[in-house]
C-alpha cells in the first residue's frame, strides 16, 4: 500500500544570523491525517511551516507536494499548490463582512462578483462543518472562535487540502477548542491533511494521528500517537541533560528579600495571566521558574519589575510594600531586570555602547549633576565594563548594533549587575531567559555570573526554557502553569521527567 504523501520535506535547513532554525528536517504529511508538530517555543516549528507556506526560503533541502518536487517562492505559490495556513494572529479585515473577507483575493470569483453563488458556497461549507456564521456579519462582531472559522473558511473555499494551523487553540475557550477539533476531524475524513503546530501535549492525543517532535531546530521523533505516552513526549520535547556542569558553591540563605502574596495580573490579550501567585525569595538564593512558554512566567517578572500593573495581591521587598510603585522606584530599590529578548527590550541598537550603559545610570549621582550627564566618566566606566565582561568592542563609542547577540547580552548583564545602585550588589535579580540563544561559552558565563551574585547575597529569580539548566542552577524550583503555581520543590526532589510532566499537565504528577 503506497499512498503518496501530500507533503514531503527532505533535509530542510534554514539558518538565521546566530541560529540554525531548521537543521536537516524531514517531515511528511499523509492525506487524511492530523499531524501534530510539537515542540517548545523557538524549536523551529513555525519556521518550518513558514517555509512550506512560502514565507521563508530554505537554505538547503527539497519540498515535494503530492509527489512532485516544487519550489515555493511565496504564499501565492503555496495556495496554488493547495497549501493554506491559519496564523496565530488572524489576517482579517474587521470592518468588512465575513463573505467579503472570504472573497478577498479569490481569483476564481472573477472580476464581477456573483454574490449569490458565493454566498451559497460559503453556506454549504459552513453546513459541512457545523459552523453557524452569518456571511453578512461584520468580522469585528464575531467571537475569536468564529473569526478562526472564517480563516478556515477562506482556505476551504480555495480548495486547500493541506492546512497548517499555528497554535490555533491558544486563543480559544475549551468549548471552541472542542468544535475546532471536530471540524479538523471532518476535514481529515475528507482526505485533507492537517498540520497542527502546538506545544500542548493533550492536544496531540486528542486530535492527532501522528506527532513529530522538534527540539532546537531538529526533529527528534516522528511517531503515531497511539504508540507513544505523554511522558515520552514530554521528555523528547524538553530534552536530555546538557553536557557541562557548573561548580555551585554552598551559600547560606539570608533573609527574605522578595515576597509576593496573591499576585494577579492581566496579560496583553486582556485575560488573567497571573492568578494568585505566592512567592518568597531569600538573599543568596536562586529561585528557578519552570513552565511551558506563555504560562505566566513573563508576566510575573514584569509585575515584579514594575513593568506591568498588578491587579491584585501585594509585592514586598525587604518587608516594604512596593506593589505598583513603578519601574524607577524599583530600580532605586535595587531590583535588576533582564527582560526576555533583552537585546531588543533592554538596549537601543541604534545608540552607542556608552549610551546603552547609561540607560539607567544617567540618573546616578556618580555620573551626573542636576541637569547634565558626565559622559566622560561614563565612557571610562564603559571601558571598564568592556574589559571586565570581555565584550568584543574596541571602544564604548561603537553602535550597539555592531555587536553580536552574545555580546549584547553581556552589555545588558554588565550594565544591570554591576551598576544599578552605585556599586552596591543588586538586591533582587530578575533574569528572564538570560541564556536563550547564546552559545555554550556565553551560556556558561551568564550562569557563573548568576552564581557569583548568589554568593554575594542577591536574591535571584531565574527563568529558562531549558529545564536542565533550571534544575542545575536553582536552589528551589517553582513550576508555573496557566498563571498559577503548579508545584514547588527542591531540584534534588524530582527528576526532569517529573517536572516536565508537571509543566505540561499543570499539576503535581
Amino acid at each position, binding site marked *: 500500500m503506497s499512498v503518496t504523501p501530500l507533503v514531503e520535506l527532505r533535509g530542510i535547513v534554514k539558518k538565521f544570523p546566530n541560529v540554525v532554525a531548521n537543521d536537516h528536517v524531514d517531515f511528511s504529511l499523509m492525506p487524511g491525517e492530523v499531524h501534530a508538530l510539537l515542540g517548545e517555543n523557538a524549536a523551529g516549528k513555525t519556521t518550518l511551516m513558514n517555509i512550506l507556506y512560502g514565507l521563508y526560503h530554505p537554505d538547503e533541502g527539497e519540498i515535494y507536494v503530492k509527489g512532485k518536487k516544487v519550489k515555493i517562492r511565496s504564499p501565492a505559490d503555496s495556495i496554488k499548490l493547495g497549501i493554506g495556513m491559519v496564523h496565530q494572529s488572524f489576517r482579517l479585515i474587521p470592518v468588512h463582512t465575513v463573505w467579503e473577507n472570504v472573497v478577498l483575493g479569490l481569483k476564481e470569483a472573477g472580476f464581477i462578483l456573483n454574490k449569490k453563488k458565493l454566498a451559497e458556497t460559503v453556506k454549504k461549507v459552513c453546513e459541512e462543518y457545523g459552523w453557524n456564521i452569518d456571511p453578512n456579519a461584520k468580522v469585528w462582531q464575531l467571537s475569536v472562535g468564529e473569526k478562526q472559522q472564517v480563516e478556515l473558511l477562506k482556505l476551504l473555499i480555495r480548495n486547500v487540502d493541506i492546512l497548517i494551523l499555528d497554535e490555533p487553540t491558544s486563543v480559544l475557550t475549551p468549548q471552541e477548542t472542542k468544535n475546532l477539533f471536530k471540524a479538523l476531524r471532518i476535514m481529515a475524513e475528507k482526505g485533507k491533511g492537517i498540520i497542527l503546530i502546538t506545544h500542548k501535549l493533550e492536544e496531540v492525543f486528542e486530535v492527532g494521528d501522528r506527532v513529530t517532535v522538534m527540539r532546537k531546530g531538529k526533529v527528534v521523533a516522528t511517531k503515531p500517537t497511539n504508540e507513544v505516552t505523554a511522558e515520552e513526549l514530554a521528555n523528547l520535547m524538553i530534552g536530555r541533560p546538557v553536557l557541562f556542569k557548573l561548580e555551585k558553591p554552598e551559600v547560606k540563605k539570608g533573609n527574605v528579600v522578595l515576597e509576593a502574596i496573591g499576585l494577579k495580573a492581566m496579560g496583553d490579550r486582556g485575560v488573567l495571566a497571573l492568578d494568585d501567585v505566592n512567592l518568597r525569595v531569600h538573599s543568596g538564593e536562586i529561585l528557578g521558574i519552570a513552565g511551558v512558554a506563555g504560562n505566566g512566567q513573563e508576566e510575573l517578572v514584569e509585575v515584579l519589575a514594575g513593568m506591568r500593573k498588578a491587579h491584585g495581591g501585594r509585592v514586598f521587598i525587604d518587608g516594604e510594600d512596593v506593589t505598583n510603585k513603578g519601574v524607577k522606584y524599583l530600580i532605586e530599590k535595587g531590583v535588576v531586570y533582564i527582560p526576555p529578548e533583552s537585546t531588543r*527590550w533592554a538596549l537601543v541598537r541604534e545608540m552607542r555602547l556608552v549610551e546603552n550603559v547609561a540607560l539607567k545610570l*544617567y540618573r546616578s549621582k556618580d555620573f551626573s549633576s542636576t*541637569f547634565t550627564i558626565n559622559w566622560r566618566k561614563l565612557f571610562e566606566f564603559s571601558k571598564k565594563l568592556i574589559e571586565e565582561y570581555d565584550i568584543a568592542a574596541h571602544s564604548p563609542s561603537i553602535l550597539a548594533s555592531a555587536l553580536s547577540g552574545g555580546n549584547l547580552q553581556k552589555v545588558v548583564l554588565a550594565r544591570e549587575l554591576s551598576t544599578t545602585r552605585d556599586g552596591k550588589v543588586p538586591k533582587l535579580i530578575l533574569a528572564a531567559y538570560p541564556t536563550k540563544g547564546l552559545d555554550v561559552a556565553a551560556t556558561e558565563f551568564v550562569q557563573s555570573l548568576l552564581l557569583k551574585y548568589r554568593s554575594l547575597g542577591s536574591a535571584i529569580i531565574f527563568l529558562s526554557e531549558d529545564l536542565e539548566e533550571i534544575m542545575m542552577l536553582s536552589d528551589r524550583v517553582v513550576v508555573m502553569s496557566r498563571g498559577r503555581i503548579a508545584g514547588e520543590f527542591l531540584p534534588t526532589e524530582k527528576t526532569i521527567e517529573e517536572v516536565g510532566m508537571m509543566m505540561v499537565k499543570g499539576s503535581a504528577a
Partner: protein
Amino acid sequence: MFKLERRVYPSRKTSGLVIFLSFLLAFFVTGLIFYFLGVNVVQFYLIIGNVFITPVLFLQAVFRSIPIILSSLGLVVAFRMGFWNIGAEGQIYLGMVAATGIVILHVFYDAIPISLMLIAMGVASFLAGGAWCLIAASLKAKLGVNEVLTTLMLNYIAILFVDYLVYGPWRDPEGWGFALSIPFPDYATLTFGGHPSVAGITISVAVAALVYVLFKYTKLGFVLSVLGKSSEVAKYAGMSVGRATLLGSLISGGIAGLGGFYVVSGMIGRLRPRASPGYGYTAIIVAMLAQLNPWLILPAGIFFGGLLTAGDALQSLLRLPASTITVFQSVIFLCIVLAEFFMRYKVVLKR
C-alpha cells in the same frame, strides 16, 4: 538582477553622501522639469546662485531664513524624540499672536516696562508656541491620538485665529480698516546689531547651541533620544516617558513660537493675516535635509531662505509664477525621502 538589501545600520558617512547626492539629484530633476516647460535652465540656476554671492541678496536670504531656521530647530527636538510634529506653522502663528499681544498690552494698558518688552515678547511667544504643541502632545500621551493629524489640523486653527484677531478685536483703529494690528513701536522690534538679519542670526545661533547642548549633555536630551528610538526601552529604564514627551514638545513648539516672534517683530513690524508663507512646512524639509543636526540647520535654512529670495527674482526676470520655488522645494523633499530609503537599503547586483 538587482536586489535591495537592508543595511545593518547606515554609517554617518553613507548618510551624508546619500543626502548630498539626493540634493544634487533635486537640482537635476528640477532643471529637467523647467527645461521641458521651456525655461532657460542655465539662467534659472544663475539667478538662484546669484542670491548667494550678492551681499544685498544674501542678507535678504538670511533675513527670510530666520523663521525657517528657528522652527526647524524646534522640529529637531520633536523629531529626535519621535514626535512627528507637523505643526511648526501653527506654532509660528501662536508665537506671532503672543508677541503682538504683549505689544498691545503695553500700548493700550501700559502693563510692561519698555526695557523688558523684547524679553517679555520672546518669553510669551515661546510659551504660546509651546502650549500649542502641548495640546497635541497631551492628546497623544493621554489618549494615544496620532500627533501627525493633530499638529497639522492645529495649523489651520492657528491661521484662522490670527485672521479673527486682525479682522476683529486687534484691528488697528487708525489703520483705515485694513486687517492689520497696530504697528510695533521701535522698542518692540528686533533690530539689534543694526539689521534684523543680524539680530535673527544671533538668536538662531544661540538656539542652535542650546539644542546642541540639550542633546549632547543633558539628562532630558538623553531621555528624549532614547524615547525617540524606543519608547519601550525608555519605559524599561524607568524614564518618565509622559513627562519627557510633554517637556520635549513644549520646547519644540516654543522654539517655533520664537520664529513667529521674529516674523512680527523683526520682519513685518505688525501682525497681519497669512504672515507666514509656510515657513513651518519648509522647516520640515530643512530639518530632514540637515539630518536633525542643529548646526547643519543653519546653512540648510539659509539655502531655503535664499530660494524664497530667488523666487522674487525669478518672477520678475523670467516671468515664472510664484509657485516655481514650491516646485523646487517639493522636488528636494521627494529626493530626501528617496535618500532615506537608500540609507536603509543598498542595491546589490545578484545573479
